[in-house]
C-alpha cells in the first residue's frame, strides 16, 4: 500500500475528471533534469563557438571552460533519462534496435554524434599539442595517461599545430548546427506529441534551443566567476560584460519566442485553451509566473538591460552578474518544469487535473536528480585539473 500512497493522495485531490490511468505522473523530476542538462551543454558550446567561429576575442578566456563545461554535462546528459526508465538495463536496445519513427530513438544517435564527433574532437584538437607537452613534463602514470589521450601522436611541429587549428575550426563550424540539432531535438521529443496540446507546437524546438543557449551562457558565466574565485585570479570584467551582452540579446529572443507562443495560444484559443488557461493560472501559477517569468526572465532582463546603458563599479557589476546567472539558471529550470510536469497535470480529456508533489524526503527521483546535477561539477573539476586551460601553451602567432 505504501507504494501507492502518493497516488491515493493524488486521487483524493483530483480536480474535475481525469482518465484513470493519468493519475500517475510518469515523467517526474528526472525528466525535468534531462532537457535542462542537455540545454546547458548546447548553450555552453554555443558560447565557445561565438569566440571561435565569430571571432569574438573578448570571450577568449571562457573558450576552454565552456568546452569542458559542455563535456562535463554531456557525459551525464542521458543519465536522468536512463535512471528514470522502468527497466534501466535495457537502455542499450535504443542503440541496437532503434525504432526509426521515434524521436527518442534517434536522440541516441544525435547524442553520440555530438559527444564523439563534435565535443570530444574539438577538445582533442584544441588540447593535443598541450597534452604532448604535458606528457613530456610528467612522470609515471600521468605520463602514460597524457600519451594515451594523444593517441600516441607526439608530433609538435608548427605544421601539425596548424592542422589541429584548421580541423578544430571546421569541427566548431559543424558543431554549431549540431548543437542546434541536439537541443532542437530535445524540444522535438516534446513538441511532436500531438496528444498533448501543451507540448504540441512547432515552436517547442526553437524555444528549447534559445532557452538552452540562455541557460548555457549563464552557467559558463557562473562557472567562470567561480573558477576564478577559487583560483584567486582576477576575473576579466570585459569578458563578463561581453557574455552578459550576449546573454541579454538571446534572453530577449527567448522571451519574445515564448511570449509569441503564449499569445498565439491565447488568440487562437482552440479546444484545449480552456484547460490550459486554468492550468497556467492555477497549478502552474507559482512556477510559471513567479519563477519562470519573474525570476528567470524579468529580473535578468531588467538588470542586464540597465547594465547596457549604465556601468556601475566593477565589484557591483560582478555581483549583479552572479545574481543574474543564478536567476537565469533557476528560471530555465522552472521553464523545463512547466513544460514537463505542466504537460502532465491536466487530463487529455480536458476535463480536469491531477497533482504532483515533489517528495523531498523519500523521493528517489529527487535524490537522483540532485545527483545528476552535482556530478557534472565534479567531472568539470577533474577535467580542469587534467586539462587546465591556464597552463596551455601560447597560441601560434597570426601569420
Amino acid at each position, binding site marked *: 500500500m505504501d507504494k501507492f500512497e502518493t497516488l491515493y493522495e493524488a486521487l483524493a485531490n483530483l480536480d474535475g475528471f481525469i482518465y484513470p490511468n493519468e493519475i500517475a505522473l510518469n515523467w517526474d523530476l528526472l525528466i525535468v533534469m534531462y532537457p535542462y542538462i542537455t540545454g546547458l551543454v548546447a548553450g555552453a558550446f554555443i558560447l565557445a563557438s561565438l569566440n571561435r567561429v565569430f571571432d569574438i576575442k573578448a570571450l577568449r578566456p571562457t573558450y576552454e571552460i565552456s568546452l569542458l563545461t559542455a563535456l562535463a554535462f554531456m557525459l551525464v546528459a542521458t543519465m536522468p533519462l536512463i535512471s528514470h526508465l522502468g527497466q534501466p538495463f535495457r537502455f542499450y536496445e535504443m542503440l*541496437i534496435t532503434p525504432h526509426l519513427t521515434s524521436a527518442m530513438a534517434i536522440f541516441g544517435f544525435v547524442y553520440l554524434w555530438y559527444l564523439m564527433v563534435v565535443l570530444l*574532437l574539438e577538445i582533442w*584538437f584544441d588540447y593535443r599539442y598541450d597534452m604532448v607537452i604535458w606528457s613530456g613534463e610528467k612522470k609515471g602514470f600521468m605520463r602514460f595517461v597524457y600519451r594515451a589521450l594523444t593517441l600516441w601522436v607526439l608530433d609538435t611541429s608548427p605544421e601539425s599545430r596548424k592542422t589541429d587549428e584548421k580541423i578544430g575550426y571546421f569541427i566548431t563550424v559543424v558543431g554549431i548546427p549540431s548543437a542546434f540539432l541536439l537541443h532542437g531535438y530535445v524540444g522535438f521529443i516534446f513538441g511532436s506529441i500531438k496528444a498533448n496540446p501543451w507540448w504540441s507546437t512547432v515552436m517547442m524546438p526553437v524555444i528549447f534551443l534559445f532557452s538552452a543557449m540562455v541557460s548555457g551562457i549563464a552557467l559558463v558565466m557562473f562557472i567562470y566567476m567561480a573558477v576564478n574565485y577559487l583560483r584567486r585570479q582576477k576575473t576579466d570584467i570585459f569578458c563578463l560584460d561581453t557574455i552578459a551582452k550576449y546573454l541579454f540579446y538571446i534572453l530577449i529572443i527567448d522571451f519574445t519566442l515564448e511570449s509569441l507562443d503564449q499569445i498565439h495560444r491565447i488568440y487562437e484559443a482552440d479546444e484545449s485553451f480552456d484547460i490550459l488557461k486554468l492550468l497556467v493560472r492555477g497549478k502552474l501559477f507559482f512556477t510559471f509566473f513567479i519563477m519562470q517569468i519573474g525570476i528567470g526572465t524579468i529580473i535578468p532582463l531588467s538588470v542586464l538591460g540597465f547594465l547596457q546603458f549604465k556601468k556601475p563599479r566593477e565589484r557591483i557589476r560582478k555581483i549583479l552578474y552572479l545574481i543574474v546567472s543564478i536567476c537565469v539558471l533557476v528560471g530555465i529550470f522552472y521553464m523545463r518544469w512547466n513544460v514537463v510536469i505542466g504537460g502532465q497535470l491536466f487530463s487529455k480529456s480536458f476535463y480536469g487535473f491531477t497533482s504532483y508533489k515533489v517528495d523531498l524526503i523519500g523521493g528517489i527521483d529527487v535524490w537522483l536528480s540532485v545527483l545528476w546535477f552535482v556530478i557534472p561539477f565534479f567531472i568539470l573539476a577533474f577535467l580542469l585539473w587534467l586539462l587546465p586551460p591556464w597552463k596551455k601553451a601560447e597560441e601560434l602567432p597570426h601569420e
Partner: protein
Amino acid sequence: MPLQVKRLLLAFAVFIGIMLGLKYFLTPDSWREYGPYRGKALIEIADKVPKYVDMETCIMCHDSIGELKIQGLHKSIQCEICHGPGYLHVDEPEINKMKLPAGSEFCIQCHARNAARPDKIIKQVDAAEHSEGENCISCHNPHEPWL
C-alpha cells in the same frame, strides 16, 4: 593525411566496429519478422492462458441450469460474470470451487436506478425502497428472473 587524423579515423573505426558487433550479437532473433519488433512476441503474448472459459464449457456439466438460464431474461449474461473465472474449476472441479455472488450489492451493480441507464435495456430499482434490506435472491432466482 596528417598523422593525428589517421589515428583518429582508426579510433573511430574501432568504435564503429564495436557498435556494429554489438548490434549484430544483441539484436533479437525474430527481429523484423513482421515489422520492426520481435516477431516471437506475438506468440508469447498469445500463449497466456485464458481465465474465462465461456458458457458452452459450463453447460457441458451444468446442463440443467444452463437450459433454465437460456430461456430467461439473463440469457445474455455469461455464467462467469457472477461466478468468477472458471479455468481452474474446469481442471479440478472438486478443489477449485466457483464463487457465489455476495448478495444484493452484486445485483445493484446493474439494477440500481441511475438516469444514465437506458430504461428500455435494463430494469432498475431503488434498492433501499424496493427490498428494504432483503436479499434479492430470496425473491428472485437469478437463473430465471421474474418481474
